[in-house]
Structure formats: C-alpha cells, structure tokens
C-alpha cells in the first residue's frame, strides 16, 4: 500500500500549512477529496505525529463543532447519539454518560491527560483506534458518516473496513444500553497519560457477552471468544483463555506476554459482568 501522503507535497514547517475552513460539512468533504488532505478535529493526535517527523500535509481541513449534530450528546429511541466533535472531557462530564455508560467517566481519567482530553474529540479517538474504539466496537455503535455520495449510517466495524480518506464522521449512536453491564480496562505503560498497550471492553447486554480490544495489536472484536462464552453457561470458565489467545494471535497481536495479560484481563472482566458488579 502506498503512503497516502506520497502523492502530496508535504511541507516541513507549520507556517507553510494552509488551514482550510469550510462553511459546511459537505464543503469539508469536497475539500478533503479535492486536495487529498486530512481533516483536523482536536488536533491532539495529528500534531504530535507531524511534529515528530517534521513533515506536514500542506493543507488541513478544519472541522467545526458548531455544525449541526457534530457536537454534544442526545438520547432518543435509537439510543445515545454522540457528536464526533464532542471533546473527551465534555463526554466524561455529561449526565447522559452516567446514565448509559456508568464506568466511562472514571475510565476517561486514564485516556490521555486532562489538557489533551479538553481538546481531543471522541470522533478523533475513534478514528485513530484510541481507547474508545474498543468500547464502541463492543457496543456495536453505528456511525454517521458523510462523504461525496451523501450521508449514511452503518456499523462502526463496517465503516472501519471500508472507509475512504474523505469520509467525515459526524457522530455515532450507541444502542440503548441502560441496564447492560459494562466493564473496561486499560493496560498502559504507566497509570495515567499513557498510550494504550491494550484496552479491553466487556459488555453483557442481558443476553450475550461482547468483547472487544484495541491497542498495540489493533482494534478487534473478539468474535470467537464471544461465541465460546455465550454458548456456555459458565462465564468465568478459564478455558476461554486459549480461544482468546488464538484469536489475538491470528489478528496481529504479536506480543505473547501482552496476549497473556489480555487473557487474564478478559477472565477478570467476564467475572465482573457475570457477577453484575
């Protein structure tokens, strides 16, 4: 696969970057498509990346949180809809999060640092496979995406497989998960403000258990372990470990020790959701 930047004319200095500020989401899409340049939301991932290699896209398409439905949380019969440009700290503070995703507010303390959470967006976090992506994957969220062909709503997993560089994420909808048992855990390099080595999410929707992971080996819905667990009565069974290990290894999780940690973390989270604590 060729480097997406290779067709462009990258620049070495910030002062040479042009920041395009479209008036509307559709204009943003057409600019991104026309110039083959990335969107900028909070900029907390994009800037460190380019500051590191001192090689910037010559243009950035700035997204605007004031565009309708791009920011904030709302619930209706479909579930909880989150605007992609909602900051991580807004999300952590929001009363609807306490209602729908009780453990999330505290968990977000472990995502980046406070200043970065004030700038960084939930959409950006999803798009780069950050901590929230495992949660979104386990909850089967549907994303609301705009591109040149119009807008569509589709499952996150499908979007991640198919997405085009000009796809613009407006938000995502979490199904009504009130009453579900949700457990999540992050393994980083230190207690706070660490890139994730592995973030694991375990959800019990009242009927079935869902498992997803993101981190060093990439975002993954743990389908086989789910099947294994859901088809057995004993959720805390230790045997699920081998299934998890195979699944992770088959999907790019190379570090055997990290897989070992994930096996055990999964067993721990499974017993939490099984016990309802």
């Amino acid at each position, binding site marked *: 696969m060729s*480097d997406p*930047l*290779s067709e462009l*004319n*990258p*620049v*070495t*200095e*910030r*002062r*040479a*970057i*042009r*920041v395009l*500020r479209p008036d509307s989401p559709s204009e943003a899409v057409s600019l991104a498509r026309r110039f083959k340049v990335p969107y900028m939301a*909070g*900029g*907390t991932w994009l*800037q*460190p990346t380019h*500051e*590191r290699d001192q*090689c*910037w896209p*010559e243009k*950035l398409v*700035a997204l605007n949180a004031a565009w309708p439905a791009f920011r904030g949380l709302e619930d209706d019969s479909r579930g909880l809809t989150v605007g992609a440009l909602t900051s991580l*700290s807004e999300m952590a*503070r929001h009363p609807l999060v306490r209602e729908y995703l009780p453990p999330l507010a505290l968990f977000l*303390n472990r995502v*980046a*640092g*406070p*200043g*970065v959470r*004030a*700038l960084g967006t939930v959409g950006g976090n999803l798009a780069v496979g950050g901590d929230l992506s495992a949660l979104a994957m386990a909850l089967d969220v549907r994303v609301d995406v705009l591109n040149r062909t119009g807008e569509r709503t589709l499952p996150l997993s499908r979007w991640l497989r198919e997405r085009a560089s000009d796809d613009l994420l407006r938000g995502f909808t979490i199904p009504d998960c009130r009453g579900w048992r949700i457990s999540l855990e992050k393994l980083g390099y230190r207690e*706070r*403000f660490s890139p994730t080595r592995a973030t694991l999410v375990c959800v019990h929707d009242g009927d079935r258990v869902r498992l997803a992971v993101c981190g060093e080996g990439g975002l993954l819905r743990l389908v086989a372990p789910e099947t294994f667990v859901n088809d057995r009565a004993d959720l805390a069974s230790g045997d699920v470990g081998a299934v998890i290990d195979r699944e992770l290894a088959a999907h790019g999780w190379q570090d055997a020790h990290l897989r070992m940690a994930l096996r055990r973390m999964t067993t721990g989270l499974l017993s939490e959701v099984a016990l309802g604590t």
Partner: protein
Amino acid sequence: MTRQTQPEPCAPEHVTFELNGDVISQWVSPATTLLDILRGSGRITSARAGCRIGRCGACTVLLNGQAVPGCLVMAWQVSGCTVETAEGLAEASDFAQVRDALATESALQCGYCTPGVAVSLVSGLRQQQNGDVVDLEEAVAGNLCRCTGYGGLKRAIAVLTETSSET
C-alpha cells in the same frame, strides 16, 4: 517521499483574542501554535515548550476557562477566545490560594513546570465551583514534574482539598 525543503509560508491570517485581559491582534500563519504566539509577541514566559506534543503540561494555559496545552492549539483556533496564563491569573484569589499552597508545601524545586501545574489546579478549583466533581490529583495528571517526585504537590493538593471542602 519528496519533501518541499523551502516551504513558502502560507498567507498569514489576522487573529484576535484576549490574553490576560488585553486584546491581542496580529497576523500569523494559521497553524502556528498558541504557545509560540504567547512566548513570542505575547511576551509570556510562564508557558513553556517542554515537549511540543502536549505530553508534559509545561505549557498549560486556560483557553476559554479550560486548561489545555498551548502547544496543541493552533492560531486559527484561538480567534475570539480568552486565554489566561499564570501571569494573568496572578491576581485572582483562587490562583493566590493555589500559589500559597504550592509555596508553603514546597511543591516545587526548579519551578519550570510549576506555572502549568498551578493553572491546572486553578482550572480544577473552578470546575469544583461549578459543581463538578473534580479530583485535583487527576487535574494535574498531565503535568510532569521531574524534581519533586510530587510529594509537595500531593500535600499542597491535600491543603487545597481541605480548604475547598470547608467553604
């Protein structure tokens, strides 16, 4: 990949924002960091380039009241905003409270990271005033300090927490 080694600067933009109560209005390239503007024409010294990638907290400032790393904010994003730094907050009573706690508990040694720490704490106290539950130790989790081992800072936070729960 071919790198354009002599980039032409793109057209500067006019950016106006409020810095510590003064209006700053200047022409600047839109992707310039707020940190560079502050340390340049803003003549601010309290915000410091410790990493330039938002991972050390030494450039923490209040942007519309929220503590953010100034190195991750671009010039075009601050138009119309209010920016407060340790210099501008020095007269505020909550900053004074933070300053006294930090000084009394010897929460600093070299002091290079300290203005950023103080700004994060002020932001935390203000969120508490707004009724949010904020753990002040979490509010400074993004401020790295290499001298103190955070012992004095933990003690200063204990003092601040005690004071704020009394009021």
